[in-house]
């Protein structure tokens, strides 16, 4: 099995899926000739041509809206928003149009698009190149929200997203693009949307996370293991719909839950998971549910100390885990 970076895995997914299915097109700013500002779509233009790999003007509502139109005619479009921070002009198209098309037509039309967007901090991107915007999308039904953390999942979940009958918003953490490598199967490899993955099994507490923070949580869990604390780390992978079964089963086993996300705390995905646990696993809890997220500022500011203070890291996560284990 080839060992790929996260970025190569995304590229491999697009390439293999497009080679297997003529209906798939890719569109976004700089995706064709340049191959994307992160090179996620590099090589696709040469292989699939300008009718399937389309450079778009700087018009995010059009990037998503054109994808919706193409899906209406039966294609499987993959739209790229260059940075998640610029998804706002497309929000009307994602939430009011794509998410609702099937419902509002009583099932007559559907909208199988994917909207890919690099997100996340830790690369000196400051206020407008490092946002986590996933929570804006998890409260609207009709769309699915996917955040992979490993190269294999990046490929397997993206291929599944492309063939999913509904719109999928697919967030890729920028810092993972080149920093993680892993085995990635060749060809049309799929991972299921809506299923979390247990990355580390443990009995003492459960950590629920996604994206880059999964890696930090795993590092923290190893630090705790040296002290005899055995943490379970769950990679949520899909934020909508949540894998309630895996979340609740883990809490039933460990009795302690910590939710970790890079996004800010208030209104983040962690609140929904905490509520889920409080409602459905209260009797299993030996401690209050804890959340760890970024302070409530807009995103990581530019100056190094500000960015470092904003971001979580393995030490901060380990401290929160120890605290919870000791409760």
């Amino acid at each position, binding site marked *: 099995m080839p060992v790929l970076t996260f970025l190569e895995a995304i590229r491999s997914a697009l390439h293999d899926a497009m080679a297997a299915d*003529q209906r798939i*097109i890719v569109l976004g700013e700089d995706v064709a000739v340049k191959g994307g500002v992160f090179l996620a779509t590099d090589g696709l233009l040469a292989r699939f041509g300008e*009718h*399937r790999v*389309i450079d*778009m*003007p700087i*018009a995010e*509502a*059009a990037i*998503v*809206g*054109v*994808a*919706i*139109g*193409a*899906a*209406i*005619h*039966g*294609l499987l*479009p993959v739209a790229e928003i260059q940075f998640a921070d610029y998804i706002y*002009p497309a929000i*009307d*198209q994602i939430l*009011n*149009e794509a998410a*609702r*098309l*099937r*419902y*509002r*037509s*009583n*099932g*007559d*039309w*559907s909208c*199988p698009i994917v909207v890919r967007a690099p997100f996340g901090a830790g690369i000196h991107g400051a206020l407008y190149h490092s946002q986590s915007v996933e929570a804006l999308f998890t409260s609207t*039904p*009709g769309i*699915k929200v996917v955040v992979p953390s490993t190269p294999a999942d990046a490929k397997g979940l993206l291929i*599944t997203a492309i063939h*999913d*009958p*509904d719109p999928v918003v697919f967030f890729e953490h920028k810092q993972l693009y080149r920093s993680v490598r892993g085995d990635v199967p060749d060809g049309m490899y799929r991972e*299921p*949307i*809506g*299923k979390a993955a247990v990355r580390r099994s443990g009995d003492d507490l459960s950590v629920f996370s996604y994206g880059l923070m999964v890696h930090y949580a795993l590092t923290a869990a190893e630090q705790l293991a040296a002290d005899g604390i055995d943490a379970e780390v769950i990679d949520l992978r899909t934020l909508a*719909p949540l*894998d309630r079964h895996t979340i609740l089963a883990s809490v039933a086993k460990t009795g302690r839950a910590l939710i970790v996300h890079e996004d800010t705390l208030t209104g983040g995905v962690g609140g929904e998971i905490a509520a889920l646990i409080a409602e459905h696993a209260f009797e299993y809890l030996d401690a209050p549910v804890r959340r760890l997220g970024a302070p409530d500022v807009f995103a990581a500011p530019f100056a190094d100390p500000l960015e470092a203070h904003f971001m979580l890291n393995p030490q901060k996560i380990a401290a929160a885990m120890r605290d919870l284990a000791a409760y």
Partner: protein
Amino acid sequence: MESKDDPLHIRLGLSPEQLVAGLRTMITARETDDRLWLLSRQGRAHFVVTSAGHEASQLGCAWAIHIGHDYVIPYYRDMALVMALGQSPLDIMLHAMGRRDDPSSGGRQMFGHFSSRRLRIVSGSSSVGSHLVHAAGIALAFRATGERDIAVMGLFGEGATAEGAWHEGLTIAGIHQLPVVFVCENNQYAISVPQRHEVPVEDVATKATGYGMPGVVVDGNDVFAVYAAARQAMDRARAGEGPTLIECKTYRLRPHSNADDDRKYRSAEEIEAWRARDPILRFERYLIDHGLLGPEQLEAMRREVRAEVDAATDAAEAAPWPLPDSLTDHLYGSVSR
């Protein structure tokens, strides 16, 4: 052979049967609209957004569409258009009353959100101007599939042309010279706001230059003028010659919706002046003047239409509601858990 002395409809290639059927559609749309206003006042329909006054613009466009082949993305004003494309008074009444068998949305959308996959009428939201990017997207898809001889028509009011998404839709269509015909039904108001406060130019059609496409102004109350422009634009689009922006100058003869009171922003004289230019009266006069329809036939047509709308109203009121349990149907195609 046609000659320049032939009547207009012959020169445009429209048969007498088409004209009579077209008039019937216009009259049916007006009668249905009138009925919905009555029903709303009686508390029997929640919402009506009028099409009165726009019928010639819409019928002229409908004549230029290859039904079920070309895509149409209408807006809430387009009842006469969708009726010309094949939605019946019963379809419209089921939609207006939110019944289970409403073909547009199964009772999910308020009146004016017409849809039919069979007729290739694409479902829209209420978000003004948001649908023209879809028109561009459908047309862009034709390039990927290699389809030719097919076009998309997207319709909107002049107020929508201030929206960002409207601009983006025309931008994409212009960049790629896509087979899209953009039709502006300019009734000079966006609810209460007059054109001079919503459009910075006299003619919406002049905006076309900035998007790399021709802009055409037509009298929207003249069904032949609209058809000639729409036909030419759709033919151009199907031939791969690119998009067109058509502006139909018209007027709505009723308030924006049953929730609006137009006395606050329009004078009675202004409305009266436009009533005199009612597109239906004008079309009737043409048919009578050219001996294509007699006054008795017209009276009979009106009677038949009224009976049809009566029957549609009764049938829709007696039709079943959606089941409460269907509230969560069609949120997803399949839940991949």
